């Protein structure tokens, strides 16, 4: 059986290697990806349309807003599914866990605890910067949300799961995750109500009279990034908290 697998791998790998020749060179301006009118439009019109220097964010949050919205929904569904599967498999009774009363940092290492106490505020501040500055520099809702969730996971690793759950109990993180999706789709619905297409942010300029359509797009991108960050950070912490405690949200690593 192993030999069949080896032959299949060698055959497939050979096919892929032989196709390498037809690939365009790195940075080739005439490659199909770069020469298509769609890419040309993004490259030439992003600043004009939305005034956002980071083209990647403009594509993610504005031109292809649907993709990002449903990616956020996928993250939400994945988190909910992990929680559900772990609890059904382990027979944990339903309903939200009450937040446990627990003394902080008695059984854990003082060096790790102190390091994390110094590190976590910096991490969270950096996460907020990444979220808020995502349309001007690399970053955005996904990355910032993951860093924010990681700071809570760091609390859980350093001090135990219970103190972390005291700060972000189950009721709160599930709510946060749904609020994120509601924020994102709320921007879309607001555009619909003002008589434009779903997630066509330009029309939102009527809400803030001092800005034009391009600025409205830029600010709306920030808004939807915040929504993405809510969902992603809450779900990342939810996945860790449930996996580390087999869905019981007690003890943990």
């Amino acid at each position: 059986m192993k030999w069949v697998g080896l032959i299949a791998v060698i055959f497939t790998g050979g096919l892929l290697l032989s196709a390498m020749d037809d690939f365009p060179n790195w940075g080739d301006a005439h490659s199909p990806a770069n020469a298509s009118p769609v890419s040309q439009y993004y490259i030439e019109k992003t600043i004009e349309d939305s005034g956002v220097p980071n083209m990647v964010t403009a594509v993610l949050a504005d031109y292809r807003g649907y993709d990002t919205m449903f990616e956020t929904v996928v993250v939400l569904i994945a988190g909910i599914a992990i929680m559900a599967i772990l609890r059904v498999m382990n027979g944990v009774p339903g309903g939200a866990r009450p937040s446990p009363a627990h003394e902080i940092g008695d059984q854990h290492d003082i060096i790790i605890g102190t390091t994390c106490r110094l590190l976590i505020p910096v991490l969270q501040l950096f996460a907020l910067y990444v979220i808020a500055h995502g349309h001007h520099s690399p970053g955005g809702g996904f990355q910032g949300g993951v860093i924010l969730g990681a700071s809570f996971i760091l609390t859980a690793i350093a001090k135990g799961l219970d103190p972390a759950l005291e700060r972000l109990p189950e009721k709160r993180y599930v709510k946060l995750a749904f609020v994120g999706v509601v924020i994102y789709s709320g921007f879309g619905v607001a555009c619909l109500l003002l008589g434009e297409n779903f997630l066509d942010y330009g029309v939102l300029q009527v809400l803030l009279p001092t800005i034009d359509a391009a600025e409205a797009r830029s600010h709306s991108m920030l808004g939807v990034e915040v929504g993405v960050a809510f969902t992603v950070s809450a779900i990342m912490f939810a996945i860790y908290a449930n996996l580390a405690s087999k869905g019981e949200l007690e003890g943990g690593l």
Partner: protein
Amino acid sequence: MIWQFDIIILIFLVITAVISLRVKDLLAASMVFGTYSFLICLLWAGMGAVDVAFTEATVGAGISAVILIATVYNTRRDSSD
């Protein structure tokens, strides 16, 4: 991109990929897998795809390694094959 760095990163990429598949200790495999993600992140950063590199660094090298380790902790540490 500097091609010498590329070659070094690609060699380490193959090494980490093979190790994370072959090693019997699943905890070690998860950590090597995080290293693999970080090397890919370096490659993307070198190619100028900074947003993708950032996502790979946070999601691939950061969170998914932690989640895999949490899973290993609650299941079994040794691989069965």
